[in-house]
């Protein structure tokens, strides 16, 4: 929020055609343009995903290594899928406002983080549990420390599935982030919000196209990233183990 006086947003005509709207320069540039909204969305989603990775991967790895939390893991999936993200964010907004922290980022960040933690946690846990016992035993026999087994054998062999978990989490975060626009924020959800509020279907469609597009790009980006980061052998191994992303 900058304080500089500037002409405030112009309303988009209700009868504007989708292409006319989408290909107009005003739609893209400026403080209320798509590029700025896109930046807001990408920054938040990247931060959420990153924090989720930092929090879930170590916990899941250690628990899986120790063979703990087998049952709770299954229940965690069920609960997390049923938790209404919107309700959590909405409950946090008044608290955040009253404690002087503003609309953002705490409520939306927390809600999205809860959403992102689970797929990463689960995939990491499952992946490490699927590492062949033989590999772990062999490393142990060679005198590797438990930490070294975890990071250099188990996590290395599980990397591809962990990656898949992060990808799923990131896509879900991108697809859910638009609720932010209904809670005092902006981001790409603004087009959906304004479209609904102003009975402007062009804006709703535009919002869906942008959000769906960003989600698809996110998925693609992870595929590319995986190719760049993970060695071929690890990826081949993952394919043999079968694809488990849900």
């Amino acid at each position: 929020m900058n304080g500089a006086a500037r002409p405030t947003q112009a309303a988009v005509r209700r009868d504007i055609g989708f292409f006319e709207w989408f290909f107009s320069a005003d739609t893209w540039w400026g403080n209320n343009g798509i590029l700025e909204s896109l930046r807001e969305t990408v920054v938040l989603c990247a931060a959420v995903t990153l924090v989720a990775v930092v929090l879930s991967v170590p916990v899941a790895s250690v628990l899986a290594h120790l063979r703990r939390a087998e049952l709770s893991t299954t229940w965690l999936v069920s609960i997390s899928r049923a938790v209404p993200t919107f309700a959590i964010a909405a409950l946090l907004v008044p608290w955040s406002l009253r404690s002087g922290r503003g609309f953002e980022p705490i409520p939306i960040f927390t809600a999205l983080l809860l959403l992102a933690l689970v797929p990463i946690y689960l995939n990491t846990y499952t992946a490490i549990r699927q590492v062949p016992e033989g590999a772990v035993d062999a490393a142990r026999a060679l005198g590797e420390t438990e930490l070294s087994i975890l990071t250099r054998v188990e996590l290395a062999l599980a990397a591809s599935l962990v990656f898949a978990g992060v990808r799923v989490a990131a896509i879900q975060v991108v697809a859910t982030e638009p609720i932010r626009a209904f809670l005092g924020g902006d981001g790409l959800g603004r087009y959906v919000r304004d479209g609904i509020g102003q009975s402007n279907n062009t804006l709703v469609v535009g919002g869906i196209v942008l959000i769906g597009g960003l989600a698809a790009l996110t998925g693609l980006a992870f595929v590319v990233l995986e190719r760049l980061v993970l060695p071929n052998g690890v990826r081949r191994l993952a394919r043999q183990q079968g694809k488990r992303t849900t």
Partner: protein
Amino acid sequence: MNPHSTRRRAGLRLLVPILTLGLVAAACGGDDSDADTTEVPAETTAPPAETTAPPAEGPTIRVRGQDFSEAITIAEVYGQYLDAKGYDVEILTPAGFRTEAIDGIRNADLDLIIDYIGGSLTALAPDGESLSDADEIMAVIGPLYAEIGGTLLDYAPAIDGDAFVVRGDSEASTISDVADLDYVFGASAQCFERPQCFLGYTDPDVYGIEFSDTVTLEFGPLLGEALQAGEVDAVVWNDTAPQIDEFGFKVLEDDLGLHPAQNIAPIVRTEVLEAYGDQLRADLDALSAMITTEDLLAWNVETDLEFRESAAVATEWLEANDLI
């Protein structure tokens, strides 16, 4: 009486009428309210007396409130009142806002809606000139409702207009004063495309305010929270929001008369009105005449500050006024 006896599931019924749209609605406009006005005053004077006259047989009257507390209570008041009078009434689960309500009349999914007349004006004639006089507005929207198969009945004294709200310590006392204050402005998405709202505030030919920033907020208590927290310095809310008093906010005077009159008025599907004859019109007019702005505010205090449910608040008010 039990206010919930008239409640049924809304969902499945909505399936049926999708294909039977428009045809019926379009055919029966044209009815004008002038012809019957002579009878109304006689009956409005003694509403409780009418309970003795059972209404003629007629179709079920489906009423549905717009999805915010005040409108839900209003719908409960009208619905429970008609139910007590012996009409076959179905109070549907509240849903949607003005657009959905008007579509309901147009598509014959709903038989009775209650709207704010200034709001109806912006919805039905979005490009028309803005009017602040209630009777002028009625003259414009009456025929427009008739076109979609609805009959606009007399408006109630109750007004719930747009309110330009600022914190209690603001230096401004009129909206014009805000021009020099470099305020951050918060409102719902609807406001930002309306000449009677944001466009009027910023239009150099009207208020010509240059806000330092704008925030789009969901209409409701979030507006008050944002204003109180200093995230925004001015919001567009409604006159009867009970939080305005609660938080010590103040409503600025609309010194240029931008805001339209927002009396509440019932709109009945013409076909249903004709089926019941003048009795239904008389009963509704009698009720509308009793609802004041203070009533709206009192209902909102009950629902939004005391967190009671609209149905119970409506029953209580009707009982207190000997209407049921």
